[in-house]
């Protein structure tokens, strides 16, 4: 855990100006995304892009060679750089040889990554960024806040101040005049400068073409006006042909901004040429006379060589993963510390900048899968973060506390139960009238700053389920109930509701007594050994009784059982086979009830309004969001949708321990959306979400009730 990062997180959360800017940004991008996804088959397009990127990265050495040949033939001076120093030296040397005093630059994350502008400025060369947002952060001496919108965190007053300083006259902070001033100031830069630097969004191997996208038009001007040009291109941008470039174009702007295409898309192949004068062919045109392309590695080949992280090279830098990230929405990009933000930034930071920082950043990920669900290149970002954590654990071991919690306790169900019983005794002085813990003593008090915890129940679910050890003979289908830890130890009554409900539906439910924790806390912390041991135990426990279905009330557990057990056991064929068989039988409770027919067994008679919170793992992990809603309505309730019903509630397991304030801020956004519906009941379908939401509402003394869908349908609430 990093004290430095936690301090930066607190600062960001306490910055009201920043928080207001972030709310505006989140609202705008949400609207943009809805617009951008209209009328396309996103899944088909992103699968296509994923395949093309995978192929390109697989064949990268050949593509680099092909690109170099074709670009050289078209008059480009091409070079390759292994690291930041080599790129910076090359460009500085070129500028010095040509006597360059003033450079204009269009936005490029790679040049930020390698610190090119600072390098040139230290040598006394004036470098003007020309993307308005990038220009603002340049003048502020800051790093970009967002891959696509570097200055999303700035107010007009702050921007006006920067330009007042720059231009030496009082600049209005009214939006329109301010924009006119910024435009005018950049216009002068274009006319004065004698060299241009750009990046590239795509490079096409078969023609030696670079593709540069800007909405503002600055890229179009920068890449044409100056006779001396350099394009700094990451090797992962190279793709085979024009149709590959189209696959990127179809999704890039739609994903991030919400428009069908970026306003200016420039395909540049080599240097140009004008016509003839007085019968003599001119040797150049009005674009670059000299075009240098520097192909940059800087850690990319290392990423390519690692099976675990190769996928991160598919990133097209659209920034949509940041737009939907609940952590980013609380912090903005500066908190991440280097150049790349959010989940993908956590991975890139490890390879391009600083592994220690990357490890700290990885602790902020809540695993809500929002980024994965929108990534146009189909990158499993939360999966990469989990692999990053596992790598750190492999190299440096688990911290002592986690080693004890996972390896010694969680791994062994009997020890876990003993620990729970012991804690249940210790908790007594802290329980309030609702059997909630409103305040833990120091040094654990930080946990209860934003949520109250449910008291642990000494009458554990397993003991209550002794009578349900095997399915009733002769009845079908046989349904094994996998309860998960939250139900077992905090909400055993909910577990009993589930059994009653299933009986009312006429199935044969039973409770395999040997079940253990699904291992998610250990797995997502990078402790794969504990996760595998628990997977083995559960596979065996849940195969007993040969169930037709295995149901869960915690989608986090369901994702482990259904998706991660097969992954964890992939190197052990027999076990893997069992894991796959089990996987096919796993259902979320509402999914099974919907499959069995949605006829409600208990129907409410009162005209009651409720709202519904989509658990992350249920909606994005299992793709279930319609079923619970239908069940709620079939049971006679009126469903009032909240804003962002599928935004994370902020329950992040380990993240809560490392960054309680961050989880708290995400929770408060969720509670605000719940309260805004005006209903007095929020239904959800995940016991971890129940814990988080109940804890947050109890802390606020809110009268709003949180009900698990099992409780609602069983009539127990």
């Amino acid at each position: 855990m990093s004290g430095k990062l936690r301090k930066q997180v607190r600062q960001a959360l306490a910055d009201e100006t920043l928080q207001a800017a972030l709310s505006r940004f989140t609202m705008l991008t949400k609207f943009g995304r809805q617009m951008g996804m209209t009328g396309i088959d996103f899944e088909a397009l992103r699968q296509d892009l994923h395949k093309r990127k995978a192929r390109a990265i697989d064949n990268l050495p050949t593509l680099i060679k092909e690109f170099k040949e074709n670009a050289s033939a078209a008059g480009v001076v091409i070079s390759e750089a292994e690291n930041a120093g080599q790129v910076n030296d090359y460009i500085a040397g070129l500028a010095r040889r040509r006597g360059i005093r003033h450079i204009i630059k269009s936005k490029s994350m790679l040049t930020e990554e390698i610190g090119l502008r600072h390098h040139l400025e230290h040598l006394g060369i004036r470098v003007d960024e020309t993307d308005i947002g990038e220009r603002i952060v340049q003048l502020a001496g800051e790093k970009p806040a967002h891959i696509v919108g570097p200055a999303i965190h700035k107010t007009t007053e702050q921007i006006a101040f920067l330009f007042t300083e720059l231009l030496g006259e009082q600049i209005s902070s009214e939006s329109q005049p301010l924009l006119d001033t910024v435009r005018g100031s950049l216009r002068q830069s274009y006319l004065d400068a004698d060299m241009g630097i750009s990046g590239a969004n795509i490079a096409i191997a078969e023609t030696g073409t670079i593709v540069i996208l800007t909405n503002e038009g600055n890229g179009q001007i920068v890449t044409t006006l100056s006779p001396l040009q350099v394009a700094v291109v990451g090797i992962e941008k190279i793709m085979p042909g024009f149709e590959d470039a189209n696959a990127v174009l179809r999704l890039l702007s739609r994903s991030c901004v919400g428009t069908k295409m970026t306003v200016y898309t420039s395909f540049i192949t080599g240097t140009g040429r004008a016509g003839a004068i007085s019968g003599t062919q001119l040797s150049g045109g009005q674009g670059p006379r000299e075009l240098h392309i520097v192909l940059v590695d800087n850690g990319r080949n290392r990423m390519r060589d690692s099976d675990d992280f190769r996928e991160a090279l598919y990133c097209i830098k659209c920034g949509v993963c940041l737009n939907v990230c609940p952590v980013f929405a609380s912090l903005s990009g500066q908190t991440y510390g280097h150049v790349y933000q959010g989940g993908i930034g956590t991975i890139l930071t490890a390879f391009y900048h600083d592994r220690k920082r990357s490890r700290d950043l990885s602790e902020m990920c809540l695993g809500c899968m929002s980024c994965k669900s929108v990534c146009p290149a189909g990158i499993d970002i939360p999966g990469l973060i989990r692999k990053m954590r596992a790598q750190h654990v492999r190299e440096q071991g688990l911290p002592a506390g986690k080693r004890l919690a996972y390896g010694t306790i969680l791994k062994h169900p009997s020890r876990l139960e003993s620990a729970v019983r012991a804690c249940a005794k210790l908790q007594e002085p802290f329980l309030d009238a609702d059997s909630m813990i409103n305040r833990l003593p120091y040094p654990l008090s930080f946990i209860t700053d934003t949520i109250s915890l449910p008291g642990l129940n000494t009458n554990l679910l397993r003991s209550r389920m002794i009578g349900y050890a095997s399915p009733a003979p002769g009845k079908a289908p046989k349904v094994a109930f996998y309860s998960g830890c939250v139900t077992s130890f905090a909400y055993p009554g909910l577990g009993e509701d589930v059994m009653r409900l299933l009986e009312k539906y006429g199935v044969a439910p039973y409770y395999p007594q040997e079940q253990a924790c699904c291992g998610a806390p250990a797995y997502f912390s990078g402790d794969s050994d504990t996760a595998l041991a628990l997977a083995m135990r559960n596979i065996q426990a849940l195969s007993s009784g040969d169930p037709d279905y295995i149901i869960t009330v915690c989608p986090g557990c369901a994702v482990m059982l259904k998706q991660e057990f097969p992954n964890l056991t992939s190197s052990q064929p027999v076990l893997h086979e069992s894991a796959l068989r089990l996987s096919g039988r796993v259902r979320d409770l509402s999914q099974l009830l919907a499959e069995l027919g949605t006829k409600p067994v208990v129907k409410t008679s009162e005209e009651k309004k409720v709202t519904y919170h989509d658990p992350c793992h249920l909606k994005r992990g299992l793709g279930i969001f319609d079923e619970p809603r239908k069940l709620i309505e079939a049971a006679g309730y009126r469903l009032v949708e909240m804003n962002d019903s599928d935004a994370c509630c902020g329950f992040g397991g380990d993240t809560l321990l490392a960054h309680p304030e961050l989880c708290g801020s995400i929770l408060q956004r969720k509670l605000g959306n719940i309260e805004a519906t005006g209903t007095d009941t929020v239904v959800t379908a995940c016991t971890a979400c129940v814990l988080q939401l109940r804890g947050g509402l109890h802390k606020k003394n809110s009268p709003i009730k949180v009900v698990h869908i099992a409780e609602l349908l069983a009539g127990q609430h």
Partner: protein
Amino acid sequence: MSDKIELLERFKTEAALSGAQVTLASSADQAVDFVLGLVKDKGITTAVKSASPIAERLDLAARLTKAGVKVMETSIAQWAAGLARGKDVPMDKLAELISAVSGEKVPPEPEAILRVARRIMKDMYAGAGLGITEADFGIAETGTLVTLENEGNARLAAALPRLHLTLLDGTHIASSLADAAELIKGSSGGIPGHKLPTFITYLTGRNTTADIPGAIFARAQGPAEEYILILKA
């Protein structure tokens, strides 16, 4: 034929949705009237233009000049031809003509002429009220204009003036990005070693920025308005 009409309709709709102002002209007179109306409305006194068969057909430069708009060609060859009043002049004579407009003594060498021409052009683009270019074709799927060139003057005439007008032949519409790629692959641009023309520019809608709070979808650094004039046949 109905396919063509459908493509044109789709192009118009998408381009308008992206923020361009689209006009369809069914005759040469209508087209000229539109441009003359535009320059009058917007108080345009100077225009820069790149090579355009449609503008030739409409005799647009002459009509604008007659309406009091100073029209400057931006391809260096055409600009030089203009200085020489269309006559074939030797290099030293051309250098003298350029010296007269540039205010510096230009030696009669192609490199020097190119350098000075670029400097003069730069000011022309930045000072012009209107840039007039012709797109090679449009893309119906996205409302995008595609312009192919080697010199780079068309993309500067499209980006730097206060307003920009693109002329487009209504029969030159590709249906999708994929179709556009096929069309482009067929054109090498004619420079040895180049598999494509130097600059292929896709322009979709009007330039925007969201970097200044309160000015969302505002004009960024290109023209304040994008006009598209489509000639029906």
